[in-house]
């Protein structure tokens, strides 16, 4: 995992922004927290979607499930009545958690959310990877919708009326900073895990599956195992960040937990915008997308969806490989891609002559 100067500079800049951003602009702390969350979503989506060519539209499932699992853990660990009694009281019971109880509950909740997300992805893997191309995409979207619908039939977690999350034991500024740090930290961990992962045989196997899965099978690559691992990693992080997002929101229901038309689609759009199948594409895409989204929400209200749609159209029509892909074609030498300038036919003859 050697880094060149350019990469170090990029990390330095991002770290500086990550640390100084919320200090200099405290009113934007939560907005920047969402920015990191979107970087995480796009990056982990790309493991399966970009690197392996399996366009999942259902990764948001793990986000929602993680959110609910965390809520269950946080409440039932320290409230004797359990989640059932808590939710059936429709918010009239507000148990006071001590700070220690709250943070323990949150920590365990996030961990449980990640683990359940991962386990769920393994269950899905057992039948979903029989599908390829658009069938996988639509199938995974179906999963997200189905899980969301099943969730609201479960009275134990409040059914359609949702759950009020435990109150944060601290003032509002500390609350923002705390959740900001969680989002930032998870994004950093996921980024470096993926960075390492793509530098191993795993990265090559993923790309081989993307380029020609039948060939990969014929060469003996255990493709199913790689796909499983790729989705499991995404599911773990989506579960964890879902737990964090639920606590940031303070109240969770179907719309908050399974935002299929927004985050569910955004994460794909961001990866496509930045350039799928690259480490930095989803990061870049998420940053640009989020900035445009926030700016249009503020200054172009009512036209925000038009603006986002416009970006997507320009992206899909003119930059199908995304920004990183476009840069790679335009300036290949920047990415260490070698362009053949010799005459290929000429070279053949030489090889034979040798």
């Amino acid at each position: 995992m050697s880094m060149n100067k350019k990469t170090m500079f990029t990390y330095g800049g991002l770290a500086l922004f990550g640390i100084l951003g919320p200090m200099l602009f405290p009113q934007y702390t939560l907005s920047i927290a969402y920015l990191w969350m979107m970087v995480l979503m796009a990056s982990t989506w790309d493991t399966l979607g970009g690197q392996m060519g399996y366009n999942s539209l259902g990764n948001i499932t793990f986000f929602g499930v993680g959110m609910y699992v965390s809520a269950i853990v946080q409440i039932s660990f320290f409230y004797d009545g359990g989640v059932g009694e808590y939710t059936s009281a429709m918010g009239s019971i507000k148990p006071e958690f001590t700070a220690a109880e709250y943070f323990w509950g949150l920590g365990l909740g996030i961990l449980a959310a990640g683990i359940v997300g991962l386990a769920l992805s393994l269950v899905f893997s057992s039948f979903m990877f029989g599908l390829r191309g658009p069938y996988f995409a639509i199938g995974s979207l179906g999963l997200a919708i189905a899980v969301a619908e099943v969730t609201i039939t479960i009275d134990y977690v409040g059914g359609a009326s949702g759950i009020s999350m435990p109150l944060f034991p601290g003032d509002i500024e500390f609350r923002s900073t705390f959740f900001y740090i969680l989002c930032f930290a998870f994004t950093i961990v996921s980024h470096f895990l993926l960075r390492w992962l793509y530098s191993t045989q795993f990265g090559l196997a993923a790309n081989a599956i993307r380029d020609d899965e039948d060939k990969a099978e014929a060469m003996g690559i255990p493709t199913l195992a790689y796909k499983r691992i790729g989705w499991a990693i995404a599911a773990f992080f989506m579960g964890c960040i879902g737990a964090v997002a639920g606590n940031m929101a303070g109240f969770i229901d179907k719309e908050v937990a399974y935002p299929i038309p927004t985050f569910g689609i955004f994460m794909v759009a961001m990866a496509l915008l930045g350039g799928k199948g690259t480490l930095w594409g989803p990061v870049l895409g998420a940053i640009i997308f989020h900035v445009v989204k926030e700016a249009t929400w503020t200054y172009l209200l009512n036209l925000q969806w038009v603006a986002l749609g416009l970006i997507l159209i320009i992206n899909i029509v003119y930059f199908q490989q995304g920004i990183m892909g476009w840069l790679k074609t335009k300036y290949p030498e920047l990415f260490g891609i070698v362009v053949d300038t010799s005459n290929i036919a000429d070279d053949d003859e030489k090889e034979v002559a040798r």
Partner: protein
Amino acid sequence: MSEAIIQVDDVSKSYGGVKANVDISLQVKRGSITGIIGPNGCGKTTLFNSIVGYHPIDKGSIKFEGKEISHLLVGDIARLGMLRTFQQTRIYSKMNCVDNMQISVSHRAESKSSMFVSRKGEIRERAEHLLEFAGLYSKRNLISGDLSFGQQKLLEFAMALMNEPKTLLLDEPTAGINPTLINGLIDRLRRANEELGITLCVIEHNMRVIMNLAEHIYCLSNGHMLANGKPEELQNDQRVIDAYLGGH
């Protein structure tokens, strides 16, 4: 060294009403180079597909090193050490040549940890060495999809060698390659067989190539096994000449 590494007995395969293979039996001896010839559409590629597990066979038995494999899947058979190349060359076209080679390492002893090994070191050295063997060293950092068709064929062959198979099934290795390159390829096939000890089974239309290369040749016609024998025997077999050699 004369026992059969691949033993095919009475294998039949139909697609709908088309009987692609009818009661085919053949043997590939360990360490040999075996040829399969026959007119277009006679069922050669179907036979290959049956052997490597691309589709279930209708009846018969296929053994690899004495083990029944007709019920196994493609990946399982590949991990036993039997690989095939494709008539329509298949490589990972958006990756560079070295990466194509590196991911083609043998997955026979795959464990969770070997999925996450670094790409540097021994694997990379072997990849570069074999690219040199295939005459592609100077192209090693190019995106493989940008190579000429002939070079892609060589790359696919080198990828197969990287996998260190016991047996390699080659589907028309010289199709679409210019005549000068063909000689280099024949030479490399022979060296792979002699130096690396890889058993080869080759489908080929180029008579000059297969008659030079193979020790034993099977000739298919209309899904049936027509004849088999040494190259010179087949060249003088009237049935083969009628079905194939005289056919054009």
